[in-house]
């Protein structure tokens, strides 16, 4: 039995007379210590899928169907009190912008101790000890002194380390990270990603990484799930998906990257734009933007099919020419 199983999850946002559906029958699971990436453009539902696990959907969003099984309970039906025992304790969350996540008027130490005391019955001194050891784990220099610093006294990279330390405080079994490095510089991004990878490996913490950056996904995760218009369109072992993408949308995403194109040439772009939630095309939602679409694609929503755990929702995977990467191998 997987650590976390999401089955047939549907999320909707009732807005006055109309209701927008953000997720359509999303299924996925996470094993203990597994690292899963969720990839897609803005508006594909990747954050909604992850937020609904912890019941963090902004109002009036709600889970209209499906179950989220974790440690024997269905998170979709938990009341607020029971959810509070899970959120930030068994499953913790890292958000994009560390300046928005940390409270600017409290010291790092206060915020960490507060979090621990909320979930465990321990003394301030013991909580302080744990907090310092976690700051050490995320390689913050002189953690004892940093406990008394305010967030504004730290650099962006340091702040995100603190946020990671807070996420690790209660030894969770899953961390959900929503674009954790998007707000950071390349050099810092590389450091934070390596750090997260090592921490998850060493403590066998499961990771759900939400990002639009395929390169980051390829370095950190073992399995990846690509979303488009509220549905999972492709999933599989990260390397398989990136080296041999089956769904035309995944191919389009990879081929649009500058490093996948000859320098100076026109970049491959996916034509058209993402459909709005209230105007999702019939059949395969990607059909108006797809080079391989035909009448079949307009009729029914294709099922998620494939071999060896690498699946895609495309009727024509056998007709589409094999994927060729334009990437020149990096020799270092």
């Amino acid at each position, binding site marked *: 039995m997987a650590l976390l199983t999401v089955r047939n999850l549907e999320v909707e946002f009732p807005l006055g007379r109309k209701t927008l559906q953000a997720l359509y029958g999303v299924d996925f699971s996470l094993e203990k210590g597994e690292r899963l990436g969720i990839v897609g*453009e*803005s508006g594909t539902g990747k954050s909604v899928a992850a937020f609904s696990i912890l019941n963090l959907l902004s109002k009036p969003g709600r889970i209209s169907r499906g179950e989220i099984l974790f440690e024997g309970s269905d998170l979709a039906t938990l009341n607020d009190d029971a959810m509070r025992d899970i959120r930030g304790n068994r499953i913790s969350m890292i958000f994009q912008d560390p300046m928005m996540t940390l409270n600017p008027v409290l010291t790092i130490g206060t915020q960490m101790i507060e979090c621990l005391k909320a979930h465990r019955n321990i003394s301030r001194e013991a909580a302080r000890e744990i907090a310092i050891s976690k700051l050490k784990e995320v390689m913050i220099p002189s953690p004892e002194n940093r406990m008394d610093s305010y967030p504004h006294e730290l*650099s*962006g*990279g*340091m702040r995100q380390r603190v946020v990671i330390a807070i996420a690790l405080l209660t030894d969770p079994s899953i961390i959900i990270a929503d674009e954790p490095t998007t707000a950071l*510089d*390349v*050099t*810092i*991004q*590389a*450091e934070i*990603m*390596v750090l997260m*990878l090592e921490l998850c490996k060493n403590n066998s913490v499961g990771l759900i990484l939400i990002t*639009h*950056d*395929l*390169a*980051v996904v*390829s*370095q*950190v995760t073992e399995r990846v799930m690509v979303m488009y218009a509220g549905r999972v369109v492709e999933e599989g072992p990260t390397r398989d998906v*990136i080296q041999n993408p089956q769904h035309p949308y995944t191919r*389009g*995403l*990879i081929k*649009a*990257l*500058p*490093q996948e*194109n000859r*320098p*100076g040439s*026109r*970049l*491959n*772009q*996916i034509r058209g*734009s*993402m459909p709005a939630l209230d105007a999702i095309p019939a059949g395969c939602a990607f059909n108006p933007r797809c080079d391989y679409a035909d009448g079949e694609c307009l009729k029914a929503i294709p099922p998620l099919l494939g071999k060896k755990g690498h699946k895609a929702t495309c009727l024509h995977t056998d007709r589409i020419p094999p994927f060729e990467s334009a*990437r020149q191998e*990096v020799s270092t």
Partner: protein
Amino acid sequence: MNTALKPLVEIRNVEKRFGGDGGFLSSRQPEVKALNDVSLSVDKGDAFCLVGESGCGKSTLARTVIGLHPPSNGEILYDGERIDTLSQQEKRPFTRKMQMIFQNPYASLNPRMTVMQTLEEPLRIHRPELSRQQVREKVEEVMLSVGNDPAWGERYPHEFSGGQRQRISIARALMLDPEFVVADEPISALDVSIQAQVLNVMMDAQEQRHLTYLFITHDLSVVEHFGSRVAVMYLGTVCELADTRSLFATPRHPYTQALLSAIPKMSEEGAGHIKMTGEVPTAMNLPSGCVFHPRCPHANDRCRKEVPDFLDNGETQTACFAVEEGRL
């Protein structure tokens, strides 16, 4: 490169400091040295890229070049003429030739103006002789060239997606047929597939209109794809200057090497990157000597005391003692 041609834009020993004097209701503001003795020249037809981490001064440099704030020291020349000392009135002919595209298309378009009004405005100011009909035609032509539907004219910015908005702001920059366009992180607020679309529009525009770009970005894979020349900046100084190809093939400066190794590659997990020690110092308290020395694995005593000069080593120009002394 033809050396006989004079550069389109020349930046000579530019410095920019912020603060330093008494602020409103306060005694003395700390001085931020955003740019220190920066010299560059951008040739006609270049896609000149400025790269570096946040706070290295790349946006300040771009804004100084285009005249959004005056340099504290140094000169900026456009087509051989000094422009940083001109009055608003005298600068007008130059503003027509120099345009800017900003990072965030959600903030750079006026939400109360229709697309048509936004695009007409530069023409009404700089080319009042044009008739209504001519203005409309011009708007239509530019809208089409950036892949926008001219029928969008009556709509407001909030009705468009990020990519569409960024194409509208590119259209606004192209309205006056500029020669030189400064683009400050024009694609970093957009999704991957939209980034490709906007970059394509910018490359097409360069080809059709013979534009020269000063392109600011922190994304090195974009630089490799788009740039013809690159300047790598660190804490307000340029540490390496080269043709894009040479820079990516043979990076000399230790900071450039670290930056390049940090690009996430679509390959094996945890691919090794060069780890820099220490934190980025702030521009309020610059290190002595080479500004990179506190994070440099190759720093020695000389680096801590003296400021390195640019050294031309054939393919790249590098300001580093370790390279100069052959220690690297």
